[in-house]
């Protein structure tokens, strides 16, 4: 009984056990089915999604920075190039104790407070995993010292970076410009221009001059490397790469030797000179004095140098040819003369008898000539030669301000010359509308009178003045001024010449041009205002001198150049072209506080023309301690003088 009961019980238990085993078997099947569904979802349905994620994980695009193009002068002299320098760079994320590491590094290589400041500034601006330079321009010994101790500094690397260098230093700095570190504003600009992707990996961008305006040509195309990376971001191998395309070389129309001669000729004077080849618009020299060393800016300028440059009364950072504004003074007269002749006024043999002053009808106010007592009998040609104010007062009045400004505007007064670097300002050619807009006052006849001799509101930049004289030299054919004459493709070697372009052809009467030209030639002849400039030249020079007042003179007050502060002296202006018959060079020179145009600015122009036309070098007159190849390197600073409020509105 018991045994059968036991057996029954045993069978029941067996049965129950197998049932329960089957239930668990079903659980296994369900569980594995669930996993299979999950596999299907991950590996089939969302395969593309995860595939992309895996690719993004493993592939990193590493930019390869292209070599920046060179800048050369018209003869191939290198003005800006690149060279490799050792830099000591730190990746903050890989360094445990940054301060300690830097302190240890400072024992091996010199780390200045400027280096530290720059490092900290860059560190704030960049991500922790980026490599940031601590020291640049390590010499061989420093590099070797670090290399030996490398193992002690995880996260610190010795890198060789391409640096921009301007071998001629200060020479032509305003025209060549410089590159600097890309800042937030540059990034915004690049985003707007959609060029940001081409700057991945680039730290620098052109900030001024040719470097800025020809950035697109110079920068080149960034190459890319597809690198497989591991989870730490370390490159494991290269999958594919697209080589960078080096930037194009930019060839300037400037003759750097001419530039050197011009800069040297300025000596310690401040001022500007622009020389143009009239028939093409090519700029031959572009001088802004004093100048500065663009190399200081490449890797971020230090505070001391910056303050010195920025606070200097001499304003070396101002691009004077493009942004310096001066009253044209008497250099305006040839254009006023031409305006008169073209309007049929003052045609020879018309002449006046100059009493030394001019009065408007129904007025007693006297507009004085610069020469007390006057020039006697003066026709239009002689009026240019002797710079007769009285003659031009009357002519301006008779033409009227509208006719006068409408004519000279064709020569570029009051408008940008369109030169191929940025930053140009348009100067000012006043009109009654402008005055009403600006001062809410009507135009007075007297203002027309003084406009006739380049005084009053009229303001020009040296670039404009050079362009005006170049147009005159080219018989009214206005060429677009250019600093760049060609661009060399560094890959193919192909040179694309930038063809001269005509801005405008001013219809002018040949005879009238001849009259003005003869008057200007006489300027450099005995009896002219710049007779010494033309002496023994060996070629004929058509020129005009000018003087622009810096401070207002009371009526009848005598101007004594020697009695007033240097900085209160008049600006000296000089425009010229030569040879007068077939002009090959046209130029404008302004010497700030130089006094009279013929004596201060004229000799500079002569040296430039002598070299350009005859290949003649000026006599060496620099003291022996000055390096003639670096004309402004050792220029001593003039004693500081309080800057005067320039009052050019007489």
């Amino acid at each position: 009984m018991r045994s059968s009961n036991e057996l029954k019980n045993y069978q029941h238990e067996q049965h129950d056990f197998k049932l329960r085993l089957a239930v668990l078997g079903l659980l296994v099947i369900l569980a594995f089915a669930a996993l299979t569904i999950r596999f299907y979802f991950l590996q089939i349905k969302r395969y593309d999604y995860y595939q992309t994620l895996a690719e993004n994980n493993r592939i990193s695009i590493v930019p390869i920075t292209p070599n920046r193009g060179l800048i050369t002068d018209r003869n191939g002299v290198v003005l800006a190039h690149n060279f490799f320098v050792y830099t000591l760079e730190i990746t903050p994320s890989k360094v445990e104790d940054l301060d300690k590491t830097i302190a240890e590094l400072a024992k091996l290589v010199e780390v200045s407070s400027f280096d530290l400041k720059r490092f900290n500034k860059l560190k704030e601006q960049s991500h922790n995993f980026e490599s940031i330079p601590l020291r640049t321009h390590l010499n061989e010994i420093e590099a070797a010292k670090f290399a030996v101790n490398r193992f002690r500094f995880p996260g610190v690397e010795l890198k060789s970076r391409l640096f921009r260098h301007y071998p001629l230093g200060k020479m032509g700095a305003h025209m060549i410009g410089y590159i600097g570190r890309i800042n937030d504003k540059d990034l915004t600009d690049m985003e707007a221009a959609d060029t940001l992707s081409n700057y991945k990996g680039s730290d620098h961008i052109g900030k001024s001059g040719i470097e800025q305006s020809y950035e697109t040509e110079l920068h080149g195309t960034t190459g890319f490397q597809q690198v497989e990376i591991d989870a730490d971001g370390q490159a494991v191998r290269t999958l594919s790469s697209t080589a960078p395309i080096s930037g194009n070389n930019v060839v300037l129309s400037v003759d750097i030797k001419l530039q050197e001669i011009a800069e040297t000729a300025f000596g310690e004077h401040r001022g500007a000179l622009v020389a143009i080849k009239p028939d093409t618009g090519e700029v031959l020299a572009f001088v802004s004095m004093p100048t500065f060393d663009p190399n200081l800016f490449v890797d971020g300028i230090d505070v001391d140098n910056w303050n010195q440059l920025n606070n200097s009364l001499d304003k070396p950072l101002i691009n004077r040819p493009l942004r310096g504004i001066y009253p044209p003074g008497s250099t305006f007269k040839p254009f006023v003369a031409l305006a008169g002749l073209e309007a049929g006024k003052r045609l020879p043999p018309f002449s006046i008898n100059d009493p030394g002053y001019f009065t408007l009808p129904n007025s007693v106010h006297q507009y004085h000539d610069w020469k007390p007592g006057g020039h006697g009998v003066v026709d239009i040609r002689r009026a240019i030669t002797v710079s007769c104010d009285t003659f031009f007062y009357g002519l301006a009045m008779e033409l009227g301000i509208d006719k006068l400004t409408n004519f000279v505007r064709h020569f570029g007064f009051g408008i940008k010359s369109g030169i191929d670097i940025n930053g140009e300002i348009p100067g000012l050619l006043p009109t009654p509308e402008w005055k009403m807009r600006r001062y809410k006052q009507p135009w007075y006849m007297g203002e027309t009178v003084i406009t006739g001799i380049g005084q009053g509101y009229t303001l020009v930049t040296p670039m404009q003045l050079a362009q005006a004289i170049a147009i005159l030299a080219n018989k009214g054919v206005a060429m677009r001024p250019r600093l760049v004459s060609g661009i060399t493709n560094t890959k193919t070697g192909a040179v694309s010449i930038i063809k001269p372009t005509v801005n405008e052809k001013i219809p002018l009467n040949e005879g009238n041009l001849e009259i003005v030209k003869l008057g200007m030639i006489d300027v450099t002849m005995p009896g002219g205002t710049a007779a010494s400039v033309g002496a023994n030249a060996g070629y004929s020079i058509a020129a005009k001198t000018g003087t622009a007042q810096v401070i207002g003179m009371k009526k009848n007050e005598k101007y004594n150049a020697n009695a007033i502060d240097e900085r209160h002296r008049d600006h000296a202006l000089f425009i010229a072209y030569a040879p007068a018959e077939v002009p090959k060079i046209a130029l404008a020179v302004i010497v700030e506080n130089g006094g009279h145009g013929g004596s201060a600015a004229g000799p500079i122009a002569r040296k430039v023309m002598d070299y350009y036309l005859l290949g003649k070098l000026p006599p060496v007159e620099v003291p022996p301690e000055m390096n003639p190849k670096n004309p402004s390197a050792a220029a001593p600073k003039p004693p500081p003088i309080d800057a005067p409020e320039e009052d050019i509105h007489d």
Partner: protein
Amino acid sequence: MISEILQGLFKHIDSFLMSCLLFTMLVGLFVLYSASGQSFDRISSQLVNIAVALVVMWLAANIPPQHLERIAVPIYVFGVILLIGVALFGEVSHGARRWLSLGFTKIQPSEIMRIAVPLMLAWFFSKRERSHRIIDFAIAALLLLIPVALIVKQPDLGTALLISASGFFVLFLAGLSWKFLIGGMVAISASMPLFWSMLHDYQRKRIEILIDPTQDPLGAGYHTIQATIALGSGGLTGKGWLNGTQAQLDFLPERTTDFIFAVFGEEFGMIGNLLLLTLFSLIIIRGIVIASQAKSTFTRLLAGSITLTFFTYAFVNVGMVSGVLPVVGVPLPLISYGGTSMVTLLLGFGILMSIQTHKKLVASG
């Protein structure tokens, strides 16, 4: 002569189960070679693990189940004492107190409990063959909860989970009433908030991040995200052996141990995954067959528990790597690198073989 010796040697080895195990371990070695960045050191050290585990398995297979029945209680008591020792004097590493230093070596007593708990519970029910009283299940539950609680406190959630599962399977197979089972499930669901409050912060975080791995993509969610990317990018056929980018380029964490399945799934794709599940299924089926043919309550319950614990291992690991279960530290059985789990697993399979091959002797004896 030689064949007789061999026959004697392999008398207690179940050839089908053995073939499945060996094949799975061979697959495991290939995956490990890839996952370790083609390290022969890892392979040879894993081969040592396998060799040791096989010896343990062979020994277990040759011990008749009756002997195991006799040592069940002492092993269990010994294990619990060691666990208490860990709680009192254990060494802390990585925020967990799991190891007990014996001077010359360190041991992890929770590993002993993996086999001691099912042994103990199977023994317990075999002694109460004819009764199905609630009180028996209550005692059994207590026997299970003591070590589990000690292990949860260490904390070692993965091991606690597996030991709970192994104990639960014994209880279930011993005839735990369905009503009680369903009631228990309801009770567990109801006690979830309490359970939640008892969890360590990192454990809670793991569960939270399982639900939404993007919460912490570089921290705790990183494991899950990178593992699902690895699996998903494997596609149907996989990227090929040694070609898994996630695995080879270090994106997968713990890829030779807990996350080795992600390497496998990336390189062999869905087809590989299904083949691996098939291998696991064959092992489980063989275990269920052994359990259903076992002659005594003790061997039946033990065989069933060992088999389904193996299943739990596999399911929990694959589930966690593929992102359907929280990340608990459970290795992939027979594949993951590591000696302890290999030995524990093969010890279990040795017991299964012993149960299968000793039943004739039991019947005749």
